[in-house]
């Protein structure tokens, strides 16, 4: 019962923000759908935590929890693809693992930024 309520809330957040039904699905704050899992794995593979912190809280790079509150999806994709070299953000444009999963990466990070995904390490919904 509790799970259903939480799931409903999370979907509501994701849906209302983007006018689409399923950017991510989350249960209990850390169990997520397959797409969002892919986004998490992409985050790990690309070692984003080295600059943005293990919990996206910011390190040398900015907090993505904050950044994704204002950054549009298009701006996000452009930043990841082209980098912001002067600021120390590299280009992931030639990283297939990142570019092939950019939507999933966005979903995962947006879920973290929205506060719907409550911890950085997620697990698949069983």
């Amino acid at each position, binding site marked *: 019962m509790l799970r259903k309520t939480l799931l409903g809330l999370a979907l509501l957040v994701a849906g209302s923000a983007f006018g689409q039904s399923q950017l991510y699905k989350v249960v209990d704050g850390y169990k997520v759908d397959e797409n969002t899992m892919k986004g998490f*794995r992409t985050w*790990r*593979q*690309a*070692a984003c*935590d*080295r*600059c943005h*912190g*293990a*919990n996206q*809280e*910011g*390190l*040398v790079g900015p907090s993505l929890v904050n950044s994704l509150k204002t950054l549009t999806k298009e701006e996000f994709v452009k930043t990841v693809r082209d*980098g912001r*070299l*002067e*600021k*120390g*953000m*590299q*280009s*992931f444009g*030639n*990283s*297939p*693992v*990142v570019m092939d999963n950019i939507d999933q990466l966005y979903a995962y990070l947006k879920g973290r930024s929205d506060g719907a995904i409550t*911890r950085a*390490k997620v697990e698949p919904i069983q």
Partner: protein
Amino acid sequence: MRISGFQKPAWSCVGLALLALPGVTLANADVEKNIANDKNWAMQAGDMYNQRYSKLKQINTGNVGKMQVAWTFSTGVLRGHEGSPLVVDGKMYLHSPFPNKVFAIDLDTNKILWKYEPKQDPAVIPQMCCDTVNRGLAYAEGKVILQQADSMLVALDAKTGKKIWDVKNGDPKLGAVNTNAPHVFKDKVITGISGGEWGVRGFIAAYNLSDGKLAWKGYSVGPDAEMLIDPNTTTTWTDGAVKPVGPDSSLKTWKGDQWKIGGGTTWGWYSYDKALNLMYYGTGNPSTWNPSQRPGDNKWSMTIFARDVDTGKAKWVYQMTPFDEWDFDGINEMILADIDVKGKPTKALVHFDRNGFGYTLDRTNGALLVAEKYDPKVNWATHVDMKTGRPQVVAKYSTAQNGADVNTKGVCPAALGSKDQQPAAFDPETKLFYVPTNHVCMDYEPFKVEYTAGQPYVGATLSMFPAPGSHGGMGNYITWNAGTGKIVQSKAEKFSVWSGALNTAGGLSCYGTLEGYLKCVDKKNIEKELFKFKTPSGIIGNVFSYEHKGKQYIGVFSGIGGWAGIGMAAGLEKDTDGLGAVGGYRELNQYTELGGSLTVFALPN
């Protein structure tokens, strides 16, 4: 035969060296003359043995308490300031982190004589993630040598700052960048490479001081010829004796072609023994951080190398952490000291490894003499088997045995080691080593990664916290007896001590702290703090001393950053996994902010 493959490049290198012969004795003599003059600080460690000891004694245990700031200098650069300036004959040469500015300062007037600022592709900034440190310059024969971040090695005219030669040392597009200080031994400029987290295959390279041409290059991993290893004459510690490594000693310990992206980078401090004509350095972690992807010992990553400076040929090797599972990068400095080891006078090499063991070897042949924990909290291995030289790994802390996607908890030390690059000092009077250490443990979760050229190649998520069940701080400043392998004294510090130590004939041992304090303690009793001053930012630079116009000065860079400064200060701020541990790191933000400057101290007139 592989042996002929090895000899050919070796002989061609000798040929180059012979051509440059008139420079050989001069270059050596010049650096030796400069370091023999106690008034100078002419090499990053003050000498070629990496001892970090100053014979100056105007500032001493009796008067250091009265020491005051004599002058300061801003580099105009934020980010972590490692290394230290050099002082040669009344001039100071300072470096900065990226963009790697160089300043020459006249110590008579404190005026900037010249300034050099290279143009570098900003794409290297993220390749150096997560900080753009540089560990300083070298000086020889009127040349100031700069190793830029983008891998360009540059010789500047010490009088004018004009470029004399430059040479490209690596491909930054593949993550091969530089943070290390170049070192001049004989007629060679020695430099290494960074990028172990980008799958860079590590090497050490020697360029002619005279013209910047490559003299030799020895890889850390791969075929014998490319490592400049001779299977019959290069030796290692095996079965309680020094024995030849045999053919394919590296290739046999890697699965498939993994060695080609196998790491073993070389970004530390190097030392040189003129009598043996050997230089010493350590190689870094094998790539990736996920051990399951690279079964085998991964030789010769995590290894102490002794090489002939003329030819680059490896005389001996010793691997400290075979099959690394924790990122215990082996690059920390090798300190050369003639000390009693277990009662016997020994030409020793002493090394405080990231893995938490303090090693003493016979530097003439690489025989293992002592290997003991220099932080009692080290738990990943019970001990080093003195016969095989291998650490005995505790299964519970084996991230390979626990496997990918499993979080191995409570490993001590953390990946940044019981000590990282912050160099220790050796005091010839007390015969002790003064070691700035980290007192930090970690959880480590490896996961599978794929290699893409020029992209990060890491493969583990880490969470670090102060050693549990201890004093709650994240550092210790210790004295160490390398002859017996025992801690003599240990002074607790709130944060990791990430600053290079300096000992002096005035009875002092000085180091910086991450909060920004320069501290000088009594070297005979390091619990006795004699001087403490808060510099503008956290200190990750190395303390140095020089004399000018009859006055002794002690100086240090401040400018928080590096792995410790940025990683620890900000990284765990909101980490809910760290539990009670988190408070310690968060507190660093209450002490310091970015900003690079030099603070120089002296006694009042």
